[in-house]
């Protein structure tokens, strides 16, 4: 659906994108994450046809973005980071206006349906200037799907919103997935990305540093650290028993909880379980720690 290879973009002397690669497949919800200034919005503006890359290949569908004259030549809906509407238009008038491209005119019935889907039907006659930020974001998403595109590019749709507004927007994005749309959305709220995305891409200093499906990412970033909760308070003997295994690299204890760092590999789990059974150590909890997306992000971006 989107194929970006070695894309570069400079503003005068400043190179924002330094050879970015990005791949989004049909039907995916792709979370594009990165720090402020990493190049997310620049990438999204290029993908939406609002800006041209300095170098590299950028295909949206089968269309090369470098060759288009107008953004509307791309079959996509775009929501900018801070969507700006005419404050003197009502929500309904906004969609009627945006729905009339000259060649195609969206029917009032569909506009009502979209407003209902976006939870704005009751406010359809209110001036957009009186809308909250969350309502404007929802109206922005409504305008992005107005022409029923197969791809949606949403730039920070949930940022700067209160928890309720964020939840509403994320529910809409989930709704888009159910409609079979492909969605590329950027965010620096990693929890939001984890909640809705199938795949993530991390951009840092204008380059993609990691691009994986969320499932693969979770598997590859499991670490061999276990939290074991014992039935009784941990004694010196218990600690020594655990440490007797060659695969145990270190332990930390606090009352009934022991954090055990093991060597990498599947054998480590089996070995730890064996020690517990052999020494008849009674446990009430056993948990293998996994990295959060935030841990992965910090590791990939800062190399920590």
């Amino acid at each position, binding site marked *: 659906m989107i194929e970006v290879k070695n894309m570069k973009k400079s*503003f005068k002397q*400043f190179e924002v994108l330094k050879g970015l690669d990005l791949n989004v497949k049909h039907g995916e919800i792709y979370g594009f994450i990165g720090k402020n200034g990493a190049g997310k*919005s*620049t990438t999204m*503006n290029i993908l*939406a*046809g*609002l*800006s*041209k890359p300095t170098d590299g290949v950028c295909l949206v569908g089968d269309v090369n973005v470098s060759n288009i*004259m*107008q*953004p*509307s030549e791309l079959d996509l*809906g*775009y929501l*900018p980071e*801070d*969507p*700006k*509407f*005419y404050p*003197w*238009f009502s929500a309904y*008038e906004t969609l*009627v*206006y*945006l*729905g*009339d*491209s*000259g*060649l*195609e005119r969206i029917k009032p019935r569909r506009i009502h349906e979209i407003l209902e889907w976006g939870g704005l039907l009751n406010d359809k006659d209110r001036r957009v200037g009186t809308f909250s930020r969350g309502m404007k974001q929802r109206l*922005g998403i409504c*305008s992005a799907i*107005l*022409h029923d595109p197969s791809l949606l590019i949403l730039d920070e749709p949930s940022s700067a919103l209160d928890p309720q507004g964020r939840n509403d927007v994320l529910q809409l994005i989930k709704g888009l997935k159910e409609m079979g749309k492909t969605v590329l959305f950027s965010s620096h709220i990693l929890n939001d990305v984890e909640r809705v995305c199938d795949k993530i891409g991390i951009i840092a200093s204008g380059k993609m540093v990691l691009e994986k499906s969320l499932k693969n990412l979770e598997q590859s970033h499991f670490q061999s650290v276990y939290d074991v909760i014992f039935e009784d308070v941990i004694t010196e003997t218990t600690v020594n028993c655990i440490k007797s295994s060659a695969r145990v690299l270190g332990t930390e204890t606090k009352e009934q909880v022991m954090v055990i760092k093991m060597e990498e590999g599947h054998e480590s789990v089996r070995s730890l379980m064996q020690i517990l059974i052999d020494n008849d150590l009674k446990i009430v909890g056993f948990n293998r720690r996994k990295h959060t997306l935030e841990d992965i992000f910090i590791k990939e971006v800062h190399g920590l």
Partner: protein
Amino acid sequence: MKSDIMKELRMGIRTSKFLVITASFLFFAILTPIMMKFILPQLLLNQFQGMEEATISQMLDMSQKGSLLGYMSDLFEIGTIVVVFALSGLLAQEIKENTLVLPICSGKKLFSIVTSKLVVFSIFLILASTLGMVICYLYAGVLFAFDIELWSVVVIGLLYGGYMIFLLNLVMLFGTIIKSSIGTGFMTLGFSLFLYFIGSYLDVHMYLPSGLLISAQNILANQSYQNLGVTLAISIILVLMISKITHMRLEHREWNER
């Protein structure tokens, strides 16, 4: 194009742009004859005590023609400022606020957006300046006497409207260069005054849009339509060229410039 025209009409009404410009035009159209008939003579009588009313009447052109000349002067000196600053954000603000991004992404054509602005506000400016001129004519006729043909006044109104259209085009062009509405307004005013100064200094008004104002004065003064054709043709060509440049500047614009 129809939806873009409707948008501009709604914008003009809801942001009070139409109201502000019409009100200022009508204010001067009504005030100028009153000033001529009552206030100015009284001021002069107070200033020069002992002066006879007949002498004052000789000093002032207390007639319908005099009122219209006064109104035309007000329209050039103050009306242009009102028009330029009321319309200065027409494109500049849209670019600064990024309100054009969603329409462009929704399939709107920049040509249609720009042309709609020009069409709606050109028609409005023509109507407003002609209406102002006719109201001044009628009111001054009631206060003094009807000594001019209505048709001439309508032509004068249209010529002033034409000059306002030239200003509108400048506002649109400078709006693509300077994102600030105020900056656009000052640049437009400065440029138009510079052109007027050049026209007067080199006596080439005939080849400049400011010649429309001079032609209007000539029509009022002595029913002379001399050189009007040349000035009109040059003005139309200039307006078309400016709107083409405006359109080209928008077409080649990147919407995430830093």
